[in-house]
């Protein structure tokens, strides 16, 4: 931008750009996929490169819920509460086969996909998914955030 002291953009685009690169995530980790989440989050794969490096351990400070691992019927109300405590705008990633569909478990205990409990934006399959897949899913979510209709405080509500 040498020689220019201004730039033009659309407000919604700027808001989407800001939101997609400042994802504060809340890891809801229950199972072995957590190891894969850790390697994704740490220096080798480093989700901080995508602006999602700030892990929050309170849902009230987070806007991305990572459901990592098996969710049982016993745990489902807890997950629902955590989702309800998050502030808008918020997004959810179902991380791993168990979170996506129940995975190898189809029995009395396991919820057959977390989208029965909370709305899911991105599904990352795999048992467990490779970190590359997680980063791919994260970039797809960023794409979705960039192109969605942005909700903000003074936006006109229908």
């Amino acid at each position, binding site marked *: 931008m040498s020689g220019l002291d201004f730039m033009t953009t659309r407000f919604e685009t700027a808001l989407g750009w800001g939101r997609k690169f400042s994802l504060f995530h809340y890891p809801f980790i229950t199972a072995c996929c957590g190891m894969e989440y850790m390697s994704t989050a740490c220096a080798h794969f480093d989700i901080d490169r995508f602006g999602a490096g700030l892990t929050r351990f309170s849902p009230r400070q987070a806007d991305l819920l990572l459901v990592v691992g098996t969710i049982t*019927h*016993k745990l*489902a*109300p807890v997950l629902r509460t955590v989702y309800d405590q998050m502030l808008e705008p918020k997004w959810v990633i179902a991380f791993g086969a168990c979170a996506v569909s129940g995975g190898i478990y189809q029995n*009395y*205990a396991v*919820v*057959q996909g977390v989208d*029965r*409990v909370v709305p899911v934006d991105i599904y990352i399959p795999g048992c467990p998914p490779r970190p590359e897949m997680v980063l791919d899913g994260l970039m797809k979510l960023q794409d979705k955030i960039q192109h969605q209709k942005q909700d903000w405080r003074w936006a006109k509500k229908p």
Partner: protein
Amino acid sequence: MGQETLIDEIRTKLGAAVESVSESCGDRVVTIRPQALRPAMAALREAPFDFAILLDMTCVDFSEPAGRFELVYHLYSISRNVRLRLKASVAAADPAVETLVGLWKNADWLEREVFDMFGVRFDGHPYLRRLLTYEGFEGHPLRKSYPWRLAQPRIRLKDKD
């Protein structure tokens, strides 16, 4: 001390409480009459057997009216460095045995788990309540008679089917 002498000692000590002795993968299995379970275990807990550790306790459902539930106990003796597997079969109608909480403290949760999963009652247990499933859960999920895939959600789930 070899396993043979140990089994002989157990037979002599427990007498009629021992139903049979068999072998599985090189390990001796002693089957005990369920009515005599508690005194037999108490005898094994003391010297000279000294089975101070209850390693594990679980149950198998064979779906037969007689001897439907087979309780399996794994004991370990530190002083003798020997492991022992004990079994006791209980019938399908009102399955119950005496609790072993007084002998091994960890029997508390192990028995609660078996009660939760199989519905076997442990008489004299201080706090026989479900351990793994939640309040309001009906039936015992590891029984063969429990409907396959029957879930009991605690909250209303979105239906995908």
